[in-house]
């Protein structure tokens, strides 16, 4: 205990990655994660701040200094328990949270050197635990109450885990054939291995939750019908409706929505075609339209599927890209090219109706819009043409509409998202709660989980006060 304190290291401990040449040929995870001694060395850099700004910037308020201290002392099992008090999917958040905008943004250490790599440490303890097998916590006595969850994305899974631990009977209804939401159908294997998502879902099942896949609510049962046999319903159906630009030629062959492209590649494992049956077609020159996570994930997937050249066409500049910088850097490193301040106006096809060219227009940035980013304005007469044989339209998704269309008395915004009370997730309909992307529009995994936590608390209260 009384050893003299060594001088604090300012530079972050780097995480080893797959070699460049190799990684653009496969779908294996890019970053390997810390080894034990690396994790401990990174943990030793943490200043254990009293007013920890990191905690305040984490949407679920993980007790960051405490779990890092436990890592420093090699008490990994306690460290993971500490993280899991607030975050039930740490292996996932450690990998995909935009940490540079959240827990690491105001890190005190960041003022004199590199911020502490909270995400990598979180990932380390989560992986450490998964390799050893999960401890399933004790359940509370049954309350006799039943809750239905619609959608097995991060929001739904969080509510499910929290409510089952409190003794409620929970059934999750998921339309796709696997639980995980965007984590299985959107985010590619090379950023988030699907075995991890499966392990987290299994853990939640071990807690006692029933996950029913292939169950589309609104078709198989309505929310109304669920309320007949459940005491409350949580809607976490996400924002999965692909947007198109509605410009001429958009239905030509070879033009995908990012959702179609990513569902084929991730959920249906088209990257293993023909061992897996679902095909995906990628030409020599691929253009991805958009600048968010879906755009980066589509571009990097296209490269791995054998494209010679992949361009990302984005209407604003690099600075405005709504995606993690770490992933933009990875993409650049891998050879993805960017065409900023450009926007497609129409597509041309060949005689077989396959896309062969895009007419784009150059943009300049004007005043900031509602999102606070500068609004792109087309420059007259600046049209130019890009040759192409595959296009992925990744300009964003909007709320899945099915529940709103089939549920009487559910208040909805003009964007199609469900209106809730921010603190509780309570909707305008008695016994119905909602959270995640279906309320906020596309946001982040951790914010969906945060909404899930709040809703779970409110649903518990509601159930315990109900006759």
């Amino acid at each position, binding site marked *: 205990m009384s050893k003299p304190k060594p001088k604090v290291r300012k530079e972050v401990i780097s995480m080893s990655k797959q070699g460049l040449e190799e990684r653009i040929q496969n779908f294996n995870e890019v970053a390997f994660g810390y080894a034990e001694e690396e994790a401990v060395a990174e943990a030793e850099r943490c200043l254990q701040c009293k007013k920890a700004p990191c905690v305040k910037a984490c949407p679920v308020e993980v007790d960051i200094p405490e779990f890092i201290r436990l890592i420093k002392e090699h008490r990994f099992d306690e460290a993971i328990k500490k993280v899991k008090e607030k975050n039930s999917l740490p292996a996932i958040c450690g990998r995909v949270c935009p940490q540079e905008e959240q827990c690491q943004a105001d890190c005190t250490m960041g003022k004199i050197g590199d911020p502490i790599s909270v995400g990598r440490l979180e990932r380390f303890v989560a992986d450490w635990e998964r390799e050893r097998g999960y401890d399933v916590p004790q359940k509370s006595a049954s309350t006799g109450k039943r809750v239905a969850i619609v959608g097995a994305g991060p929001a739904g899974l969080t509510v499910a885990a929290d409510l089952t631990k409190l003794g409620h009977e929970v059934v999750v209804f998921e*339309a*796709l*054939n696997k639980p995980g939401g965007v984590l299985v*159908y959107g985010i590619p294997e090379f950023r988030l291995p699907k075995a991890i998502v499966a392990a987290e879902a299994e853990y939640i099942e071990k807690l006692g939750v029933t996950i029913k*896949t*292939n*169950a*589309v609510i609104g*078709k*198989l*049962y309505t929310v109304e019908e669920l309320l007949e046999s459940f005491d409350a319903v949580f809607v976490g159906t996400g924002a*999965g*409706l*692909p947007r*198109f630009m*509605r410009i001429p030629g*958009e*239905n030509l*062959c*070879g033009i*995908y*929505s990012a*959702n*179609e492209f990513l*569902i*084929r590649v991730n959920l*249906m*494992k088209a990257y293993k*075609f*023909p*061992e*897996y*049956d*679902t*095909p995906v*077609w990628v030409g020599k020159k691929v253009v991805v339209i958009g600048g968010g996570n879906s755009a980066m994930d589509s571009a990097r997937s296209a490269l791995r599927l054998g494209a010679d050249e992949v361009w990302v066409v984005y209407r604003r500049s690099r600075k405005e890209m709504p995606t993690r910088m770490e992933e933009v850097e990875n993409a650049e490193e891998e050879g993805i090219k960017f065409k900023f301040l450009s926007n497609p106006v129409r597509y041309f096809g060949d005689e*077989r*109706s396959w896309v062969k060219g895009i007419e784009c227009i150059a943009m300049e940035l004007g005043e900031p819009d509602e999102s606070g980013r500068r609004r792109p304005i087309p420059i007259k007469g600046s049209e130019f043409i890009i040759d192409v044989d595959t296009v992925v339209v990744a300009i964003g998704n909007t709320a*899945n*509409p*099915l529940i709103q269309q089939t549920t009487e008395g559910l208040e909805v915004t003009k964007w199609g998202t469900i209106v809730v009370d921010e603190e509780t997730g309570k909707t305008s309909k008695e016994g119905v709660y909602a959270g995640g992307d279906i309320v906020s529009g596309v946001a982040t995994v951790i914010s969906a989980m945060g909404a899930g936590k709040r809703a779970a608390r409110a649903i518990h209260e509601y159930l315990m006060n109900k006759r």
Partner: protein
Amino acid sequence: MYNIVTKRELVPHINLFEFSAKEIAVKTKPGQFIILRVNEKGERIPLTMADVDPEKGTITVVCHEVGKSTRQLGQLEEGDCILDLLGPLGKPAEIGKFGIVLCIGGGVMVAPLYFQAKALHEAGNKVIGGIGARTENQLIFENEMREVCDEFYVATDDGTRGYKGLGFLEELLKERKIDRVITMGPILMMKKVSELTRPYSVPTIVNLIPIMVDGMGMCGACRVTVGGRTLFACVDGPDFDGHQVDFEELMTRLKMYSPQEKLAFVFYEEGGSSL
């Protein structure tokens, strides 16, 4: 896992399957479809339901083996199970009291057309049925259709049974006042039917089955142009106004994966894929 309760070969390469799927059976209306997957590596196969038995808790589909995945399904037997079964998807067909309704079906889609014809008949319409196939020994569901139709025609492309081609339809349209036409089958046939009815302004409903992935509005693979607007067949359809549909676009989009489909088929036939 979903059990195959009945499997029957109707004609070579066209099989009827009855799956045990109670929850879906109770909810299904004519015109709706399911998506199934045979196993973990399987593709999602959309199939329109040809009947349901809510009491027994079963649904019936009829599937034509056209490529790898449908061939693989065709190789399963009674008592076997499939991994995934999702439904009911799509909007139900509009079943109202229209008067005289003409139901024109071709190929494998005669089976799901039967489900609609039956409902239309029960709703008090006079149903005229017309079914066709390439050739005589490819005709399916003839007896089933006869039972629910007040009047009935058979046609083949090569004239080996009944009328040759769609000539009978032209006659009917000329001579009778038809209130509604419903057509399910090959795109070229539905296109032809829509062209024939257009001069008579008979409302004509076509059933569009573009390539689909999720089947619930999340991917846009199934986009079709109807009346100049892009719609998603899986959630906005699959039934559309035949006089408004861009059939050419639909046909090209359906061929998008032809080279890959051929590869998958060869791979499968040579035993590369595990069942």
